[in-house]
């Protein structure tokens, strides 16, 4: 898959920018993490802004009492820090009394808690001791001064790694929060290949937490887990490198890397993957006609941009113009960069006003961007796809390849349907 002719974009120079960033902070990861870990609670120690962000990012308030909340700092907490620690103890005790089902409590740092240097590590240690053995308390930072959107999940998982039990067993560890249906498909594929035991981080329940050691072969399912990867490597766990499992090709290469490590015979690999590969190709083909040859511009959002651009370019025939990412981790994304056909500008970080100038000049057929930019760009006549849907929708592995392509083709099909009536008189 590599080779001189196919170096793709690995060595391409990157346009690095800094300025206003139109992205979420790491707290947003709580929206999916609290659903994934069914006996965990995420307590943000922050401000009203943090609470308002979580509420707005969640879009709808679908949960009676969600497994997250914000301990809102008030004027009196800012006056003296000892006081804030005591307040935190009180709020946590109240919370755990009301929610006896909680086994894992994450204290999540925010911009204000980081700026006032509220020591949540110390608090987690103290609270863990106080509520052991029933509840384990960990801390991580989802603050906007340190994390961008999906980096919140990275920080959360990285915080879990040091407390994972040790093992010397030869196991496969899938790293990254996936929708349950997708995770089950991945596990079924791996089981059919005869690979096992397979464990998952994060586990759905704290009782199923994986162990880690020098024989734990780790493979990422999400590209934004740089710190988690480093933490696992510090525990001596070897890491498999592969393109990410988006689309037929990405999924096959990802599975192949795992299968090679476990010595799965080619015949078996083919027997297991042929049917789902064919299905994935069929499903993607339905969208390819809409996407083929269309020019694509990705604003930085979730760090999924490079693997997605690879999928859209190679399997859907799109032509990426600019691929923006909040943070480019070359070691993790190397295999995807190798496959990404040369042509696009790679940009890292953001100065949103400058990037908007570039997108206006490029006039791409489809712009992938955040919710704050989508309607304004539509009003300027550009078709857009909300990036956040890529994080909130099952898109990994074979059976979702068609759905993933569909997320990008739908705005174009919709535009074609509505073109006669679009007046572009968007509300002011």
């Amino acid at each position, binding site marked *: 898959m590599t080779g001189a002719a196919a170096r793709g974009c690995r060595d391409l120079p990157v346009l690095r920018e800094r*300025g*206003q*960033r*139109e*992205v*979420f*902070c790491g707290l*947003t990861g709580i929206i999916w993490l609290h659903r994934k870990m069914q006996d965990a609670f995420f*307590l943000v*120690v922050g*401000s*009203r*802004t943090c*609470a*308002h*962000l979580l509420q*707005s990012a969640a879009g709808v*308030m*679908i949960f*009676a009492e969600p497994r997250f*909340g*914000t301990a*809102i*700092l*008030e*004027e009196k*907490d*800012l006056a003296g820090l000892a006081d*804030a620690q005591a307040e935190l103890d009180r*709020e946590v005790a109240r919370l755990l009394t009301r929610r006896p089902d909680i086994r894992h409590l994450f204290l999540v740092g925010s*911009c*204000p808690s*980081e*700026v006032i240097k509220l020591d949540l590590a110390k608090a987690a240690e103290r609270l863990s001791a106080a509520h052991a053995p029933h509840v384990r308390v960990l801390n991580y930072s989802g*603050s*906007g*001064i*340190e994390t*961008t959107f999906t980096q919140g999940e990275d920080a959360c998982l990285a915080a879990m790694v040091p407390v994972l039990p040790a093992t010397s067993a030869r196991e496969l560890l899938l790293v990254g929060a996936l929708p*349950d*249906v997708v995770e*089950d498909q991945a596990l079924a594929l791996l089981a059919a290949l005869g690979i096992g035991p397979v464990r998952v981080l994060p586990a759905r329940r704290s009782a199923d937490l994986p162990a880690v050691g020098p024989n734990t072969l780790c493979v990422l399912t999400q590209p934004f887990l740089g710190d988690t990867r480093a933490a696992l490597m510090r525990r001596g766990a070897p890491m498999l490198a592969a393109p990410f499992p988006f689309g037929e090709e990405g999924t096959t290469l990802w599975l192949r890397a795992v299968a090679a490590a476990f010595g799965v015979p080619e015949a078996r690999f083919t027997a297991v993957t042929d*049917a789902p590969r064919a*299905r*994935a190709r*069929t*499903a993607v083909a*339905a969208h390819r006609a809409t996407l083929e040859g269309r020019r694509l511009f990705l604003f930085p959002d979730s760090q999924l941009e490079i693997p997605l651009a690879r999928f859209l370019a190679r399997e859907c025939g799109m032509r990426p113009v600019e691929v923006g990412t909040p943070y480019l981790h070359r070691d993790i994304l190397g295999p995807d960069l190798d496959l990404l056909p040369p042509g696009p500008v790679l940009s890292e970080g953001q100065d949103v*006003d400058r990037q908007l100038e570039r997108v206006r000049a490029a006039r791409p057929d489809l712009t992938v961007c*955040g919710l*704050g*930019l*989508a*309607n*304004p760009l539509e009003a300027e006549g550009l078709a857009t796809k909300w990036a956040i849907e890529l994080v909130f929708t099952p898109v990994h592995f074979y059976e979702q390849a*068609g759905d993933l392509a*569909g997320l990008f083709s739908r705005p174009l099909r919709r535009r074609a349907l509505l073109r006669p009536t679009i007046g*572009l008189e968007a*509300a*002011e």
Partner: protein
Amino acid sequence: MKLTVWTYEGPPHVGAMRVATGMRGLHYVLHAPQGDTYADLLFTMIERRGQRPPVSYTTFQARDLGADTAQLFRTTVQDAYDRFRPEAIIVGASCTAELIQDDPGGLAGALGLPVPVIALDLPSYQRRENFGADETFLQLVRHLARPIARTPHVSCNLLGPTALGFRHRDDVAEVTALLGEMGIAVNVTAPMGARPADLARIGAAHFNVLLYPETAESAARHCERAFGQPWTRTVPIGVGATRGFLDEVGTLAGTDRRPGEGRLRQPWWAASVDSTYLTGKRVFVFGDATHAVAAARIAAAEIGFEVVGLGGYNREQARALRAAAKGYGLEALITDDYLEVEAAIAALQPELILGTQMERHIGKRLGIPCAVISAPVHVQDFPARFSPQMGYEGANVIFDTWVHPLVMGLEEHLLHMFREDFEFHDAAGASHHGGHAPRHLPAAVRPEPAAGPGAEAAPAAAAEGGSMPPEAAPAGAAVWLSEAESELRKIPFFVRGKARRNTEAFAATRGITAIGIDTLYEAKAHYAR
């Protein structure tokens, strides 16, 4: 420290954004970390705005904290001016920037920009969104409005409408039309739609109409002191309040002219015999103080409901709410703790909730219908059609909006007569709401599964088909294997019925008799469009 699950109001800088985004030619430079830009989507998504809010964020990071965040702020202000050329700039700090104490006002003032630069002091750890809007508008008026001669003909200003306000767009249109019928011109509507230059001539109006005390009472009081402009105390929501408001305006303007009531239908709609069934229905009212007080008055005096609970989340206006509650023999519930509101509603078990989007969720959980009367707003609160709350058309809209969630007259009787009918159980909504079809039938009233008990996997499937049950399986139809069945259950309920039907149709065309996971996904690929 206070544990919060959901909040009724955002932080105060979001209030400032509502003012800035409602206006034109104004730019807001906010000293804030990455992530605070989430607030943009409130305006672009909920309100469907076709422009980004006029806000520049400094986006400082952890590594900047040891270096020079003040310089970053200066650069951002200068860049924003150069790029957007606003007529005036407001500057301030979000919660995090407040802690690093960079003095945005001083820094921006020192740049010597050729436009007014107004500093906002919005204490993030004490105050909230409505305060932020009210204070921002006050500062804008204080800095920009100048003494000026009154207009030759009688005119007024409309104060308070902002971006992301509950029906502000349509209220302004309705009130402007009513005033027009009385021969009163609108001098300036602000903040919504106004430019900084318009604020300069606010003093030309003969009086002020305060539409929303939550966002503009401070500005109205300032104008009274600075320009001698009286302001209206009555907010024209409801028939009685609209008439009272028009009388108040007539007195201020010195005119006996009143708008015709030809288009006002609400009184007859409430009086007609079809509405008899509304009599004495127990309602719980919660929202911002202005809308909650108005809703309670309409409920009691204009529709004939019984107000069993009344409350609001904004303490700034709590006095009005307490006084109103006393009139119904109630104690006002003043809280921004969502769980407390839920507990109050659960205890009172009203027949209708008049609340915010938060209470709509409470209602969904408790099985109580709800009509939304107040912010915090949701995309549904920005309808495409003209839909004011104020004035005569507002009264018409309110009647329809409140009555719609209820079970209609004769249907209500049928429900009492045939309580055991499985379609009439308590969780079933009104029959004119297709979307509220029962989802969780109690076991006792659950219809019998379509397939016989012989088929091993099918019965469970039929029962959980919800509002889209599968058609009765003819003899010889494919059977769902349990693994495929559990796979199907992982598909969201609202597309599950479609997935089931597609898979079965696919199986039938292929002569497949046992549906496995593969069949499910073969079908999915087959129907992929």
